[in-house]
């Protein structure tokens, strides 16, 4: 964990404004999801594709007796789909659970509020709706995702509107 020592130092400096974030990688970018939204991480799953489903739906997975709809982060970020297995974050939202398809899930990072920056004004409308600012880490930016906005039901509404 390369950021480990940095995180520990930050924790010492500013104990009250720390957040734990699960890092995920999609393409070359590191994204973050607050861990309190994550129920479970399902590794190397093969979601079942759904014909005629909206593009952002990555397919269905079987998760603890339920069938979960997954959302493809690649599609939302307008990236070409990835072949083969992907990791899935099972997230909880007001409408129930859903899965978020990412290339790979990394470590849980502890980030400090002092490193936080809101979305830049130059970000285009679509991305601004998905992203929730970024943390400046030593090795690059950790772009935060807003799980609520990734909820398939919300995405469906947004599309219909």
């Amino acid at each position: 964990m390369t950021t480990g020592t940095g995180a520990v130092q930050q924790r010492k400096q500013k104990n009250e404004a720390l957040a734990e974030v699960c890092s995920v990688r999609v393409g070359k970018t590191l994204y973050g999801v607050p861990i309190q939204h994550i129920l479970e991480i399902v590794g190397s799953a093969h979601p079942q594709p759904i014909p005629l489903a909206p593009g952002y739906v990555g397919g269905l997975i079987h998760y603890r007796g339920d069938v979960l709809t997954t959302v493809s982060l690649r599609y939302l970020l307008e990236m070409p789909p990835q072949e083969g297995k992907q990791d899935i974050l099972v997230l909880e939202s007001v409408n129930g659970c859903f899965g978020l398809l990412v290339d790979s899930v990394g470590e849980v990072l502890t980030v400090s509020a002092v490193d936080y920056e809101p979305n830049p004004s130059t970000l285009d409308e679509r991305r601004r709706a998905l992203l929730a600012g970024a943390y400046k880490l030593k090795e690059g930016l950790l772009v935060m995702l807003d799980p609520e906005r990734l909820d398939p039901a919300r995405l469906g509404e947004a599309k219909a509107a």
Partner: protein
Amino acid sequence: MDDLTREFLIESQEGLDRMERCLTELEERPQDTGLLADIFRSVHTIKGTTGFLGFKRLEKLAHAGENLLGQLRDGKVTATAEVITALLKLLDGLREMLKTIEAQGGESAGDDSALIARLEELQAPAQQARVKAVAAGAGVVEAAKAAVAPGSPAVAPPPPVVSSSASAAGFAPSEAKPVPAAAPATSEPAEVATDVSAVAEAGRARPQGGAAESTLRVDVALLNRMMNLVGELVLTRNQVLQATASDPNMTLLSRRLDMVTADLRESVMKARMQPVSNVFSKMPRLVRDLTHTLGRRARLVMEGQETELDKSLLEAIKDPLTHAVRNSLDHGIEPPDVRQAAGKDPEGVLTLRALQEGSHVVIEISDDGAGISPEKIRAKAIERGLVSAERAALLVERELLQLIFLPGFSTAAQVTSVSGRGVGMDVVRTNVEKIGGKVEVDSRPGKGTTMRMRIPLTLAIIPALIVRSIDQSFALPQAALSELVHIPPEQAAAAIEWIEGAPLYRLRGNLLPLVFLDRLLRPGRECGLSAERDNFIAVLDADGRRFGLIVDSLADPEEIVVKPLSSVLKDIGLFSGATVLGNADLALILDPGSIAVKTGVTMSRAEEAAQAAEEGEVDASRMRYLVVEVASRQAAVPLGDVLRIEQLPFSRIEYIGYRPVLNFEGQLLPVEDSGGILAAAQADPEAQIIVVVCRDGNRHVGIAVSHVLDVTTGADLFEAGTGARTEGVTLLKERVTGVVDLGGVPALPATEGAPQDWQRTAEAMA
């Protein structure tokens, strides 16, 4: 909320439900003391317990009701419509309060004096006068009572023992006396003192207590959880069965697992079953109230109340049933004078019937009212812009009737407080379909309307056939599947016929619209049957819409556990859920009804006619025959085996040796000529002959006939004495007719190499 209060709420709700049922019955049988005792007990229990729990407002109201009920029971007041209305109001009032207590944990402030006054007003006038006199003239009595039983209402019910006495004041001490004696024993001193029969009631209640010991209240959430777990177990079992299928050592174990799982599933499902009477029992009250507001007269007949249905489904049909009953009373049953003018009994009959039909429960709501005129529906639907005039013109009667389920449809001339806003039937259908049921309506103008709801016994697990298309598995509910047709590769090119891009298949002479599943799921794909592999048509019947769904291959039938889909995927409109298969794959569950709607399949006229014909028949064992004349004798061929009737010149008939054959669509058909028709025609090569092309197993044969007479239905004949079915003879058109034995037509000497199997039609598993 503490357990005691919760218990009280549940018990009171049950008591009130029982009271409601009894009250409506009481109106018909005002002298029934058993009913009265039942009602009295319900209110009495509520009053007793509320006093204990400290719900003063509830207690006061219950008490007022109890007084009136006490008099009813003692025969001092008769149960007139007025009294029953007041008691129903009391019931509503009590219910309202219980609801408040449940929601807020305590009573809300409010004034029930009007209702209480009304209840008092209805008590026997003489009694009332006397009570007033007591209250005014004998302050001593009141004071004494207040002293011994604080918190008991000011006006106690006049005790029956004392009622014979004219001078109440003189008896004051004796009236007050029993009270202190009873007070320590129970929390309802005034009640025990005045109610002599309370002991008798307690005695009567005891046997019920015995039943209560062997039953247990279980939280529905727990049952739901159990159902889910059983669902999981079924999935795991399926997976285990598949994984161990090849291992002989595991066979016994896995078979046992299979059995235990099936038993467990059944038991859990049974635990969730409740009789439909739980919902039906709400109806008498509804009918009573509605007939009063609408000025109708109707009798409610209920049948099959013991039929059981899953608890959650029962909840779900409550609203649709209410709507349907409302509708029947408002639009169905006419006002008494109109009925009389039409020569009907002024009192209409509304029948609620529940019965189990296989894995479904059918709930019928029928009235003997005015019925629905299809033409009126057509006009209304066009007027409201629900269908275009062109489309409406194409709809057959049954389809027109189904239009009443469209949102926004109402034939009521004006909006009444009961219905006419055009939401009712829409709600019925939405709610019923939400639980995987179907609703249909059948109506005869002037005779009445019947609405039929078909509700699956359980939601969670359904039998389905797994089919494959676009390299994915899909589950097709067996309920909608009527048969499967196999089309081998060599037949692929000719099997489908087209009308302007619409694919059709000839199924026993009827044209069946086809839907290519692969093209439906991946729009833009080239459609057509593959000549490289087998093709399958799943013949589906979704609410009378018949169509064939073409799939790539068939897998096993499986019992699947239905998992709901997220709203985004439900919006696609083709899938009703998803499931996990035995091989741990996920499969989407196809929704035949939505597919039919999406692809524009409607009910065909031929289907309609066939259905009408079927309705005329009662005997399911009857078969349809093609009746032909062969050399002045009548003979018959089962219609299901008849593929075509060909009229052709004799020159088309060729001979292999002495055997006549026909070149039919590239196949050689042996032609049966037992009637000597071909022999007779030999003289004239231009003579027209008729050959009936039939299917026999997987080969085809031709039968030369003189005339084709008719298609008719016939029953099997039974040999007298033995009861055995006679082979090859049937009774058609009142004549004993020989059935042509297709298998008896000898095969041609050189049929090898010729494509034999044409198509195999297998009855889908039920």
